[in-house]
């Protein structure tokens, strides 16, 4: 028969369990709803500025600028939301797990962007970005509330539709995805999961 555990070891194990559960629960709802709404708003403005994809570097740079604005918004919103919950996001296992699932599709998008540009497919980048961003959200969202992977799947579906549609509609798909989906799902997440 296994020897019973000394009481202090049991207490340490309980505290470890509590910490792990709180970290996982924080990561579970860490996706920032209001942050998503702001990111969506910036994407709508960007779509208006960029216009239809026109095989110029300008078009890509305008969207890179939007990504450069959106990333800090997302990080700040996640941090604020986690801090408000009383359990800041740490470098612990849940954060690593999320990053491991979320980052690879984004890296794939970064690799494919110059490939599309150099092979004369720049106007097809909206489909590529929507598809891969959706993949990142869907896989990262596997560790989150159900609405997050659903949002990822919606992005992926829109990416497929964008590939099948005329390239000139690209900015509308970008506006619908990075603008519309972020805002709609952002409001749902904010209302249901505390911001």
């Amino acid at each position: 028969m296994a020897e019973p555990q000394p009481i202090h070891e049991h207490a340490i194990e309980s505290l470890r369990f509590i910490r792990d559960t709180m970290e996982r629960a924080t990561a579970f709802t860490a996706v920032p709803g209001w942050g998503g709404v702001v990111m969506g708003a910036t994407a709508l403005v960007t779509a208006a500025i960029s216009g239809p994809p026109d095989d110029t570097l300008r078009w890509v740079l305008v969207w890179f600028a939007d990504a450069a604005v959106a990333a800090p918004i997302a990080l700040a919103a996640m941090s604020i939301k986690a801090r408000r919950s009383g359990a800041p996001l740490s470098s612990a296992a849940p954060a690593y797990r999320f990053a491991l699932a979320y980052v690879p599709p984004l890296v794939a998008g970064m690799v494919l962007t110059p490939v599309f540009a150099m092979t004369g497919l720049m106007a097809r980048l909206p489909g590529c970005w929507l598809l891969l961003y959706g993949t990142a959200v869907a896989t990262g969202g596997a560790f989150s509330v159900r609405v997050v992977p659903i949002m990822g799947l919606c992005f992926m579906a829109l990416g497929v539709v964008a590939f099948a549609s005329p390239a000139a509609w690209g900015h509308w798909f970008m506006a619908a995805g990075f603008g519309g989906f972020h805002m709609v799902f952002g409001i749902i997440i904010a209302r249901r999961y505390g911001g």
Partner: protein
Amino acid sequence: MARAVASPKSQVPRPSHVASPAPAAKKSTLELDRLIHERLRLGIVSALAVNPRLTFNDLKRLLKTTDGNLSVHARKLEEADYIAVDKSFDGRVPRTEFRLTAAGRKAFEKYLAHMEALIKAVRE
């Protein structure tokens, strides 16, 4: 060698290797909140401590448990007034949400303090 008296899985075993346990540890053991101490209930309370509210399905996914298990343990916490349950409809789909009550948060904080006191007492 450290030995402890065998006890049910849901209870903190009392150590027999300490001839005179520190008063704080003794007191903590006696006052341990058995309701929160059970692992799944502790998980429910811990998750709700960092989220204003969570749905039944969210908690089920987060704690990797079954409908029946979660229902039984959530009911016990609800009966103790540690958590509150809000039932509504999302369209036609029933939606059950849980949130930690003030009494539940206080009990959770007390439980944490007990665990810390136990560890501190043994280390001292």
